[in-house]
C-alpha cells in the first residue's frame, strides 16, 4: 500500500523551519545543563569534595512523645520512661579489639558477637549507630559515661520506653508495642513510622496507634568526621501523641483480676445504660512491660508455650457454652412464642426420658412441680428440656441471635470471636448430618454446640435489664490532648432493640432477682444486704462423666474435666448501674465459684472502697501465676 504525503511544498518548508528552531532550542538548553554541571563539578567541585569527605549533613530524628493511657477517672495507667541504649558508630571507632574489650569490662556483653556486628556494619552502613545493649541500668550508664572519652565511637542514645504502671493490669485491653515489621511497613499501615520504631501490636496500643504515636520531628545537622554536631541547620519539633482515656475503672479492674488470681477465666463489667466497659479481665495475663524492653526469646517461648495462652483475651475471644444462663433465652423465646405459660406447673422428677435416652437434672433429688419462675430460680433442667423441645431448635436459635448472642459485639478491639448459635441448617452444613431432636434438649440447658463469649454475655444481661437496648460495648471514653481537650469523645452507640414484650421481660427479670435472693436460688452466694442483685448461674459440663463415677467429689476430678462456672449479674435490679459476666474455667459450679466473685466485686463497687491488697497481689502476679 502506498501513501501520499500530505505536505504541500509550502508546508514542508514551514515544518522544516520549525524543526530547525526546535533543534536550536534543544541545543541551547543542553548547553545550560553543561554549564551547570561544569560549575558544580569543576568550579565548586573541590569544595563539595571536602564536604563529602569531612563534613556531612545528616538527619537526626526527634521522636514524638507517645500519648498516655488513663482510666475513666483520669488515673494514669501507661506512660513513657527514658531508656538508655548503648550504641557504637562503626566509622568512628579506632581499634575494635580494645573497644570491645573495654566494653566487656564495663558491662556484660558478648564481645565476639558485638565485634561481628560492628564489622558487618562497617562494610555496609558505617555511619549509623549499631545498638549493643538496650535498657542500661543507672550503674552501667555511669560506668560508660565516665569512660566514654577513651572509647571513641561509643554513644548513649535515650529513647522513651513504654511503661505500664501497674504491670499486668488490663494487659489484654491495653496491649503492647513491638518493633514494626516489614509487612506493616510495606502495607503503609503506619505512615508515620520507620524501620526500628515501636508500634502498637495488640489491644488499645494497636487500635489507636495512629493517635497515640504523634508526629516525628527532626533536625538537619552538620556533623564533623567524629560524628559531633557542628550546627543545626533546620529543626522541626515533634508533636506529642494524643492521650487515650479508657472506660475502665482501675480499682474495679484490679479487683476483677485479683478475683481471677491463680485461675483461668474472664470477667467483664459493663455499664448497662451506655455500653461502657468498666472492667475487662482475662487470666492468665502477661506483662506489657516485657514487650517494651524488647522481648527476648526465652520470654517469648515461655509466653507461647504456656498451656493457658496468656496472650488470649478470653473476655472477647474465649468461646464457651453458656450453661444454664442460656435458660434465660429459652424462657424469653417460649414466652414470646406463647409456648410457655408462666403459671403452668411442670413436674420434674430428676430426669427426663426422650427418644429412649435419659436426660438428667443437675439435682438428683428433683424439683417437683415447678412453674417458670421456680424453674429459673432453681435452674430446673427438666422444665427446660420440655420447653426447649416444644419451642424447637430453629426458634431458639432465632431468638438467641435476636438477643445479640452468637455474633461479634463490634468492640473497638481486634481478635473478637463470634461464638456460635447452632440450628438445623448449620448442623447440616457443618457436619453433613441432620439435627437430632435430642440435641435440642441439650441446647435448651446451654450445653452442646452453643458458644458464647463473656462480652456477649454481659451485653445480653445488660439489655434484659435496660429494656432491651443493645449497645455496642466501648472501651474508649475519649481521645484527646492536653492542649486541645476532648478531641474525640465516644458516645453510647445503640445497635438495636430486642423488641420483646415488656411483661415477658419483667417475668424473667423477677425470676433472676429470685435466683440471688430466694432461699432456694442457685445464685444466693451473690446476695448483698443493701442492694438487690439479680443474676443467673451457669455450669458447663466439659465432659459427661460415666454414670458410675457420678458421685465423685469435685476435687477428685482431673483439672481439665472440671466444669466451667458462669455467673451473670446486674445491680441494683431496679435500676442497674453495673452488669457483670464472670467465667472461670474448670473450677466447678457457677453458683459456688462464680457467684461469690460477683458478690465481692459488687460489694466493693458500691462501697467505693477498694481493698488495697488487690494491688499487692497484682504486683507479683507474673505470667506464670496460673492455676497449675
Amino acid at each position, binding site marked *: *500500500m*502506498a*501513501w*501520499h*504525503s*500530505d*505536505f504541500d511544498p*509550502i*508546508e514542508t518548508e*514551514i*515544518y*522544516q523551519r*520549525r*524543526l530547525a528552531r*526546535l*533543534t536550536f532550542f*534543544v*541545543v541551547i*538548553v*543542553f548547553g*545550560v*545543563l*553543561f554549564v*551547570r*554541571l*561544569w560549575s*558544580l*563539578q*569543576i568550579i*565548586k*567541585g*573541590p*569544595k*563539595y*569534595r571536602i*564536604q*563529602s*569527605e569531612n563534613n*556531612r*549533613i545528616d*538527619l537526626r530524628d526527634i521522636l514524638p512523645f507517645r500519648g498516655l493511657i488513663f482510666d475513666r477517672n483520669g488515673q494514669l495507667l501507661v506512660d513513657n520512661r527514658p531508656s538508655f541504649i548503648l550504641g557504637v558508630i562503626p566509622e568512628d571507632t579506632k581499634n575494635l579489639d580494645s573497644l570491645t574489650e573495654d566494653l566487656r569490662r564495663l558491662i556484660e556483653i558478648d564481645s565476639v558477637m558485638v565485634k561481628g556486628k560492628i564489622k558487618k556494619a562497617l562494610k*555496609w*552502613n558505617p*555511619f*549509623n549507630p549499631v545498638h549493643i545493649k538496650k535498657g542500661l541500668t543507672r550503674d552501667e550508664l555511669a560506668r560508660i559515661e565516665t569512660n566514654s572519652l577513651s572509647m571513641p565511637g561509643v554513644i548513649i542514645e535515650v529513647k522513651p520506653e513504654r511503661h505500664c504502671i501497674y504491670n499486668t493490669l488490663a494487659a489484654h485491653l491495653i496491649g503492647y508495642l513491638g518493633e514494626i515489621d516489614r509487612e506493616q511497613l510495606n502495607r*503503609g499501615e503506619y*505512615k508515620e513510622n520507620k*524501620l526500628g520504631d515501636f508500634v502498637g501490636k495488640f489491644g488499645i496500643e494497636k487500635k489507636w496507634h495512629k493517635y497515640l504515636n504523634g508526629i516525628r520531628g*527532626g*533536625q*538537619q545537622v552538620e556533623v564533623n568526621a567524629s560524628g559531633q554536631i557542628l550546627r543545626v*541547620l*533546620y529543626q*522541626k519539633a515533634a508533636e506529642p501523641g494524643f492521650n487515650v482515656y479508657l472506660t475502665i475503672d482501675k480499682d474495679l479492674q484490679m479487683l476483677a483480676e485479683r478475683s481471677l488470681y491463680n485461675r483461668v477465666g474472664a470477667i467483664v463489667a459493663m455499664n448497662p445504660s451506655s455500653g461502657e466497659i468498666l472492667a475487662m479481665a482475662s487470666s492468665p495475663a502477661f506483662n506489657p512491660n516485657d514487650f517494651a524492653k524488647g522481648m527476648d526469646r526465652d520470654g517469648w517461648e515461655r509466653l507461647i508455650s504456656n498451656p493457658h495462652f496468656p496472650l488470649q483475651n478470653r473476655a472477647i475471644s474465649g468461646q464457651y457454652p453458656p450453661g444454664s444462663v442460656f435458660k434465660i433465652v429459652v424462657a424469653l423465646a417460649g414466652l414470646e412464642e406463647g409456648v410457655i405459660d408462666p403459671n403452668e406447673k411442670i413436674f420434674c422428677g430428676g430426669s427426663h426420658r426422650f427418644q429412649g435416652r435419659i436426660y438428667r437434672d443437675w439435682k438428683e433429688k428433683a424439683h417437683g412441680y415447678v412453674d417458670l419462675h421456680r424453674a429459673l430460680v432453681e435452674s430446673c433442667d427438666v422444665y427446660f428440656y420440655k420447653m426447649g423441645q416444644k419451642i424447637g431448635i430453629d426458634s431458639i436459635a432465632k431468638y438467641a441471635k435476636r438477643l445479640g448472642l452468637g455474633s461479634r459485639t463490634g468492640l473497638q478491639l481486634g481478635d473478637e470471636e463470634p461464638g456460635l448459635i447452632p440450628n438445623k441448617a448449620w448442623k447440616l452444613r457443618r457436619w453433613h448430618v441432620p439435627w437430632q431432636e435430642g440435641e435440642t434438649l441439650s441446647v435448651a440447658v446451654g450445653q452442646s454446640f452453643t458458644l458464647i463469649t463473656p462480652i456477649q454475655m454481659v451485653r445480653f444481661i445488660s439489655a434484659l435489664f435496660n429494656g432491651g437496648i443493645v449497645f455496642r460495648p466501648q472501651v474508649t471514653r475519649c481521645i484527646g490532648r492536653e492542649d486541645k481537650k476532648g478531641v474525640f469523645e465516644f458516645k453510647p452507640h445503640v445497635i438495636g432493640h430486642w423488641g420483646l414484650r415488656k411483661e415477658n421481660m419483667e417475668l424473667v427479670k423477677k425470676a433472676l432477682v429470685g435466683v440471688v435472693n430466694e432461699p432456694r436460688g442457685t445464685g444466693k452466694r451473690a446476695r448483698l444486704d443493701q442492694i438487690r442483685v439479680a443474676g443467673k448461674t451457669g455450669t458447663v459440663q466439659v465432659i459427661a462423666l460415666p454414670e458410675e463415677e457420678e458421685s465423685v467429689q469435685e476435687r477428685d476430678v482431673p483439672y481439665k474435666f472440671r466444669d466451667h462456672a458462669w455467673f451473670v449479674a446486674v445491680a441494683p435490679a431496679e435500676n442497674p448501674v453495673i452488669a457483670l459476666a464472670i467465667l472461670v474455667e474448670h473450677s466447678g459450679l457457677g453458683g459456688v465459684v462464680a457467684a461469690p466473685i460477683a458478690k465481692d466485686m459488687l460489694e466493693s463497687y458500691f462501697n467505693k472502697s477498694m481493698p488495697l491488697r488487690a494491688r499487692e497481689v497484682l504486683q507479683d502476679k507474673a505470667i506464670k501465676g496460673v492455676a497449675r
Partner: protein
Amino acid sequence: MFDRRLIHNFDWILLVILVFIGLLSVLNLYSATHTIRSMGGSQIYVRQICWFAIGFLVLVLMTTFDYHILDRFAYPLFFVSLILLVASLKMGRVTYGSQRWLSFGYFSVQPSEMVKITLVIVLAKHFSRLERMGDYRLRDLLRPLILIGIPFIMIVHQPDLGTALMLVIVCFSLIVFINVNWKSILIFLSTALLSAPFFWITLQDYQKERIIAFLRPDLDPLGAAYHLTQSKITIGSGLFWGKGFLKGTQTRLDFLPQQHTDFSFSVLAEEWGFVGSVMLLFLYLFLILWCLNIAKNSKDKFGTLVVVGIAASIFWHLTINVSMVTGLLPVVGIPLVLFSYGGSSVISTMAAMGLIMNISMRRFIFQE
C-alpha cells in the same frame, strides 16, 4: 507481503543509542543499590535488565505494523487508555499514598504512562487534519484542550503530579510547535489560572497537601531541601573524573531515599564525574536530535507530530530531572526516563521509541 526495504531502513543508530543508555542505567543502578539492602536493593538492577529486555521486545513489536493504523484508530486507543486510567483510580493498588497502578495478577501497569503516548497520537491526528497552517486561534484548540483536560484531571486525582505535569508540558510543546498565535496562548493560560481555584475545591485534603508539597518542596526542610543539599554535594564531589565505580561515598552513605529513581543521575555524576555525566547528556542529546531528524524526514504530518511529541517528552524529562538534581529547579519528583529505575516507564518509553523507529522505517512508502 514483507517488504525488504523495512530491514534496509531499520534504524540501527537509534537502537544503538538506546542500548547504550540501557547499559549505563543498569550499571548505575547496580552501584546505586549497592548499599540499599532495605529495599531488596540488589534485585533492582536485575529487574531493570528484565524491563529493558521486555522493552526491546516491545520496541520490535511496535515496528511490525504500519503506523497509519494508529492514525485510524487513534480515538479508540485513547479511550481504552482512559478506561484503564479510570480502572486504576477505582480499583488500583495504592502505593505511597497514591493510586496509579493497575494490577493484572503477575504484573502491574501504570495506565498514566500509556495515556502519555495515546494522547500524543490523538493530538497528532487532530493537528495533522487542520486545514490552515499556523496562527491557530483559541477555538481551534478547544478539542485538544478537552482531550488533555480529561486525563490530566484524572491523574491529578490519583494523585501523580509529576506525570500530570509532564502531560501538560508535552502537549503544550506540541501546540507551540504547530504555531498557535501567542495571544491565544495567553488567553488560555489566564483562563486556566482563573479556573484553578474551582478545580482546587474539588480536591481532597490529602491531594491538596501533595500538590503543595510538590510545588513548594522547600517547605519541608527535612525532606526535599535536605535531598537537594545532598544531591549537590554528591554531584559536585565527583569532580572531573569521578570517584570511580562503586566508590561513591555519598551513595554509600544512603543519603537519598530515591537514589535509584529520581536521583540516579547524582549517583552517576559522583562516580563518573563531569566526564560521565556529560557523556550521558550527550547520549540523550544525540537521541533527541536523531528523533528530530526522523521527524524532518517523515513524509506526513501525522508522523512528524508523533515524533515531535515523543521527543518533547524525553527532552522535558531529562531537562527537568537534571535541573532538579543540580538545583536549577525545585525537587519536583520527576525521574530520568530510561535511566532511572521503573518498569512501566522503561517499557512505555521503549514502545514510544518503537513507534519512532516505525515512522523512520516507513518513510519510503510514500509516493511523490
